């Protein structure tokens, strides 16, 4: 680890001020990716602005069929929240499967989506649900948030305040986990709204993505045979020692069909 300055501001104004007073400062949410990469000397921020003391960024609430989760809410809180379990059980289940207990008690939803690791679980929920990212500067629609490999549309000094999820009729998250890291090799987030079906895939490519052609087909006929019938060309899938692109393409199909059949039984 290289030397760095450390701040723990109490509110957004202080945070932004501290952030902007250094050239190469970084926000610290749960630190589940940033700290290990700093320890490996692969990341060398001049200052860390720790967001864990900003109460405004934490908490879970429901209002008008919108589930709001503060950016600094840890995975364990999402997994155990009765509000989440009752309104959007797929999200609680997703959170309960991230990493291990240590990670779930430090890692945050905001940190996860701001980092946009291609194998992270949360980005699939953002895209697989109708959601909005509320930041310190603006509101970003889910579809405009992820920009590619570890990249988002956030400005460097912009903070995620909370995420608003429109609660679907039903939803499911299914992960095919890497047997070693337990990250997603393929993760499927499938949701049904009265006017739309969404299918988002994480882990398989350089960035989370939606399978639009399939969504259309499933909206008209929610059944797994649609997956075989639809031509949804997916290209540029990841190729690594744990799964090549062909196996990932195969798994996407298998996991989507599995997700559909589970939702059908519900």
């Amino acid at each position, binding site marked *: 680890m290289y*030397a760095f300055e450390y701040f723990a501001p109490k509110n957004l104004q202080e945070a932004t001020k501290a952030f902007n007073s250094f050239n190469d400062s970084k926000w610290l949410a749960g630190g589940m990716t940033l700290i290990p990469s700093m320890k490996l*000397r692969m990341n060398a921020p001049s200052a860390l602005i720790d967001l864990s003391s900003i109460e405004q960024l934490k908490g879970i609430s429901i209002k008008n069929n919108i589930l709001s989760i503060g950016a600094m809410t840890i995975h364990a809180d999402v997994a155990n929240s009765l509000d989440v379990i009752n309104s959007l059980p797929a999200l609680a289940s997703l959170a309960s499967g991230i990493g291990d207990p240590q990670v779930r008690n430090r890692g945050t939803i905001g940190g996860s989506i701001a980092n946009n690791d291609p194998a992270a679980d949360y980005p699939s929920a953002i895209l697989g649900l109708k959601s909005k990212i509320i930041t310190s500067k603006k509101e970003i629609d889910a579809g405009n948030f992820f920009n590619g490999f570890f990249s988002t549309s956030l400005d460097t000094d912009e903070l995620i305040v909370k995420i608003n999820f429109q609660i679907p009729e039903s939803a499911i998250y299914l992960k095919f986990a890497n*047997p070693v890291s337990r990250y997603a090799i393929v993760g499927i987030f499938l949701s049904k709204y009265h006017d739309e079906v969404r299918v988002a895939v994480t882990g398989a490519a350089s960035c989370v993505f939606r399978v639009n052609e399939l969504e259309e087909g499933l909206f008209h006929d929610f059944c797994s045979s649609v997956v075989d019938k639809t031509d949804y060309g997916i290209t540029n899938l990841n190729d690594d020692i744990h*799964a*090549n692109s062909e196996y990932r393409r195969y798994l996407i199909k*298998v996991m989507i069909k599995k997700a559909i059949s589970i939702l059908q039984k519900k």
Partner: protein
Amino acid sequence: MVFDIKGKFNSKLISSIGKPLERKEDERLLRGEGLFSDDFNLEGQYYVTFVRSPYPHAKIKNIDKSDAEKSPGVIAIFTGEDCLADNLHPIPHSPVPSTKYDLKLTDPEGKDIFIGPQLLLPVDKVRHVGEAVVMVIAKTNFEAQDAAEKVYVDYHELDWTADINSSLKEDSPKVWDEIKDNICVDTIFGNPEKVDKVFNSSKYLFSKEFHIGRVTGVPLEPRSALASYDSTSKRYLLYAGSNGAVRHKFQISKTLNIDPGSLRIICHDVGGNFGTKNRVYVEFPLVLWASKKTDNPIKYTATRSESFLSDVQGRDLLTKVELSMDEDYKFTAFRASNVSNVGARVISLSPLGKGIALVTGPYDIPLASARARAVFTNTVPTNAYRSSGRPEVTFAMERLIEIAAKSLGIDPIKLRRINLINKDDMPYRNALGVTYDSGKYEDNMNKALALSDLDNLSIRKEDASQRGKFLGFGFSNYVESSVGNPKESVELRVDADGFISLIVGTQPTGQGHETSFAQVAADLLGLAPEEIKVVFSDTDIVKKGGGSHSGRSMRHAGTVICLAAEDLIDRGKKLCSLLFDQNYQSISFAREGSFTWSDKKISWFELAEAIEGVELSGDLHTGLNIERENEMHEPVFPNGCAACEVEIDKETFVPKLTKYIAIDDVGRAINPLIVDGQTHGSIATGVGQALFETFYLDKASGQPLTGSLMDYGIPRADQLPSFVTELNEVLSPTNPLGIKSAGEGATTPALAAVINAVVNALEEFDIEHIDMPATSFNIWRSVNNKNKESKS
């Protein structure tokens, strides 16, 4: 007393031997009171970071340390040239196993093997990614790391070779210019001409080539070393974990060119070894040397990344096996050609040699030949890794048997039964001249089969199929060998405070010696295990000893404890005779740990008190303190088998081990609870390689792609079933307690048993073999290729 008239251990003495006592060391370890190498610190210690090679193979053209030397906190920066200038020697690795019974490996001309000298820091070129090149010493760890980044090593990249096949090629890049190619060992054993003859006229002949891939040990505790030099006493002190500090002491002193008596090594608790800590690492002599040069204590602790890059690794054997049978399916001859990837230097040929000796396994095969080769590659050296060499050859034999049985259309269990060595033929000399001491191989198999419920296997397969799984059954027999360093020593000392100290040369790395050694000594001396204090870990106290490897510790320590106990009892009688003016013959030693004559009785500890202050002369001058050494060359052959079931998801092809049965003949189990725990770990080691583990190098760059626990898959509890383990104790005739060994046996058949189950589960696809690790990706690929094949 200790031995009966036949020279065997007197079984009447047994009281705590064979009891599943809980480990004495557990409370200390579970309370966090263990003392591991990195727990030691000396005031004002400096820290070391090593600049390591980023290339598999490169010439070192120049090292510019001028920037780094100006970095804050830097004390000194040393390179290979500095080591040469101070006349530091290469580490005197002794890769060829040293007992009379080991098969003798030679170079291709039948001469001594060129091992590729391991200088402490290289001066000519780097030969693997992660090789230490420059040593940077600073006041803090961070300062050392900062400075290390400012050392500029000018490399000229060279072509490299990482795998066996490419290293064998004539036009392969050469790891060492000192020899004409990369082949450092080439020796033929057995009778190739006769085998050829039998093969040519045999009814059936089967052959197959297997690669048992590269794995690494991943001990929980990375290696660590803390050194200091005392200029007044001119003595060096090193805190460093290993499997036995005594051998390290002698090898390190040779490297440093110093008298071994001037080096003290302290090694308390060791957090896992599996072979990774058997050998001297360059960092150990380097921190000692540098601590003298800087006149300050110096500390080095490897990071997890450094462990992955530079811990010695395991396995990596290419083997081609051929087996002939007559019309009754009786094995008639066997041929193996084994090539071991030793990495950039030969630090151990145990995997190759031990494997070659056992290529025919537990089967009665009248004729065999084996060619043993070793090749250099631009990879980390390989060493003995849990059950060195034996899982590899067991894998080849047990996979070949399955392949043969399938092709013949007969039950593979039946094929094994026809050919297993009969217990009445023990001791059995195998076709390569290796004599198995004892064992009831068919009984092992029967025990496992009785627990396997094969009658209902088809019902379980059907049931699994309904649940969307392919279920497969796998089986493997094994025989392995336990040889190791032939010498062991022990000191027994009766202290008046109510303990007998047992000072022993072998070092535990998690095997529970404090408990099991105490059980043996307690029974022999008529005491309770709590009254025996096992002492190890400090070379100023422990002067001799072979270390823990090759399943040797319990057997060697047990034997020398027997000898020392007899001496100590004799000494006790002589002291009683002297002190109480009695005839030696009239004194007897009673089982409850006391000496008696007429109506008198005195305990060990009362006797120790009684001799305090008494001037003892001649033979008795050491009082109740006995040192004893023993040298024992004869190997023992633990054996057994494994049966398991694997379920593979029909859609994702994820395999899951659902049932595992291990039957092991460890000889006499001194503490069956410890043996059981060892068996569990041993199974996990084997299953790990079968299903999860491989040290993967990028084919284009030679860079490791599994350099962390994010990519290197060691098995976890939720990936393993609850194991069923049973012992089949057949006492070895080679040592008084009848011990064979535990801790490595169960690893030996695990690779084959699991892969046999995976292949069996996929029977409808008619797949002959699946390479390890059998991950869902590998299985899917095999099935997919098969489907493509059948479509075309």
